């Protein structure tokens, strides 16, 4: 068919993007004149994502919304895409490129919210250890920085962050080893969506659930369960559903010539939220509703 195609390109395969898929789906319902699709690169690497976008452009895609693997340094590659289609960024911004707009959250703010959770849960201070997939990735660095900023001047300290290269067995072992190596740790932070559930399980296996404060990111079912149970202090959630839903509609409008939705500077921040014990049921219900289940 000849309907113009809009693509949402993510930065790697992860359940995190399932909500975005739902958002794309919802937007599709409201944009019958467009084909909307969500694309996973087969590997989380710049070269492969770049190639995927090149091929999409070749295939005639009119607009691309991308969560770039490494936006800071992919300026030229992104500009090449931007010169041939309407390019939007999401998840992590590339402000130096010719992208039309960024729609997503601020990872620094999310990190600060995590600090809020920690401060509330540990008014007397504590020692935190973080866990993350890729220590070098921008989103990890920003969240860590945000949290450190948020903790500045308190008695809470983020002493170290351990990476696991997105190997979940290693993620869990890292928590186990941390419990051995640093018995004085009072709080653990899972910076990637799967880190918090691994923390939860390692603590459960060690019988330390509830003794150590867990600060989470994202909304893995185990994380939400832990929040509800009270063993996870709270979690900072982003809203990929909104990014996708609003983003796709915005892109469609933009391609039709309606640029009213794009603010000066092109930054559209969908704020992250803290989901604590009291919010979790409503949040989970909302998730379900969005996924159309």
């Amino acid at each position: 068919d000849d309907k113009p195609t809009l693509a949402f390109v993510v930065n790697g395969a992860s359940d995190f993007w399932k909500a975005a898929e739902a958002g794309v789906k919802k937007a599709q319902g409201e944009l019958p004149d467009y084909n909307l699709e969500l694309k996973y690169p087969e590997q989380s690497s710049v070269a492969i994502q770049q190639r995927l976008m090149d091929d999409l452009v070749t295939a005639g895609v009119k607009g691309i919304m991308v969560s770039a693997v490494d936006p800071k340094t992919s300026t030229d590659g992104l500009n090449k895409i931007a010169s041939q289609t309407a390019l939007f960024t999401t998840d992590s911004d590339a402000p130096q490129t010719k992208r039309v707009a960024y729609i997503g959250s601020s990872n620094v703010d999310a990190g600060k919210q995590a600090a809020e959770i920690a401060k509330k849960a540990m008014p007397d201070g504590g020692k935190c250890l973080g866990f993350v997939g890729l220590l070098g990735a921008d989103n990890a660095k920003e969240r860590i920085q945000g949290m450190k900023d948020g903790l500045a001047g308190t008695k809470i300290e983020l002493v170290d962050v351990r990476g696991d290269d997105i190997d979940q067995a290693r993620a869990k072992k890292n928590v186990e080893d941390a419990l051995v190596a640093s018995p004085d740790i009072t709080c653990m932070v899972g910076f990637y969506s799967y880190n918090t559930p691994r923390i939860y399980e390692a603590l459960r296996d060690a019988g330390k659930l509830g003794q150590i404060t867990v600060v989470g990111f994202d909304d893995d079912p185990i994380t939400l369960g832990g929040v509800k149970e009270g063993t996870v202090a709270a979690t900072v959630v982003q809203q990929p559903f909104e990014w996708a839903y609003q983003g796709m509609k915005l892109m469609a409008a933009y391609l039709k010539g309606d640029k009213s939705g794009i603010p000066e500077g092109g930054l559209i921040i969908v704020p992250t939220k803290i989901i604590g014990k009291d919010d979790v049921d409503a949040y989970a219900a909302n998730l379900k509703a969005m996924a159309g289940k």
Partner: protein
Amino acid sequence: MSKKDLGLLVLILVVGAVVTAINPRFLLPINLANTSNLIGLFGILSIGQAFVIITGGIELSVGSVVALLGTLFIDFIAVRELDWPLAFVLIIALGAIIGLVHGWLITRLKLQPFVVTLCGLLIYRGVARFYTADGTAGFAFGQNFPDLEFLTAGRSYGVPNSFIALIIIAIVMWVVLHRSVFGRYLYAIGKNEEAAKYSGIRTGRIVMAAYVICGVLTALSAIYFAMYTRSISPASHGQFYELYAIAAAVLGGFSLRGGEGSLIGVILGTVLLQELQNLVNLLGIPSSLNFAVMGGVILIGVLVDQQWGVFRARRQMIDATRRNVAGAPAE
């Protein structure tokens, strides 16, 4: 226990002693239990790999199989709600079938093991990712399978049951490899398949059996891994595990040319690798150096082993010459 194995054991103990000296918490029962749990998981995998390597083959698809079968296992019991023993049997059967297909392609259609299993590496992970639509397979919060969890992730008297499983498997496989007719055939085939064939051995069947054993053990460890992480992103789960398994076998004295290596060796190789991983965390070495440490130790281990062999052979030679010169009969 061979001299090679003994050397490896000494290395493991020395490393352990050094780590303990720096951070005595290394010897905490909980740390030993955690590490031995992973030794169990990777050990089962590595024994399977060892059976293939002995025949002069290689199994590169191990990591992808761990991802695919792990995904299916969790999907079977968490989403499709099959009884876990049924799911367990299904997964093991699937592992056996994968091994059978590999063995068949290699022995009947004469494809190279490296090629067949490389394709497997690519295909199985792809299938797993497609199956979950690039999502995650995991248990819902609070989903519990007490018996299964006890068997896979539980502990008996503080010892992880996965480690106990490894010990049992290792004993059985030691007998199979070092005492049975089948084991002897494996070594013979690894040394010289053609000559083994000329001795009337049905080499095709034996090699196929080795791949089936590898498939079954990999399936078993896939289940253990699945129950350990309790959640699987097929895109990354088990990536590079084939390298762990191969590295353990190589450290344990296996030759990739086939026909060499002992079961104790591969277990010790696994122990050393996991000790290294543990060490990186306990000593606070940057996690980025994790793999580099592993690579460095394997290289040094293999080098020392090799040079030691050369040295010994040379000394024997010199001794022999000296003895001869001293006591040569005049005639």
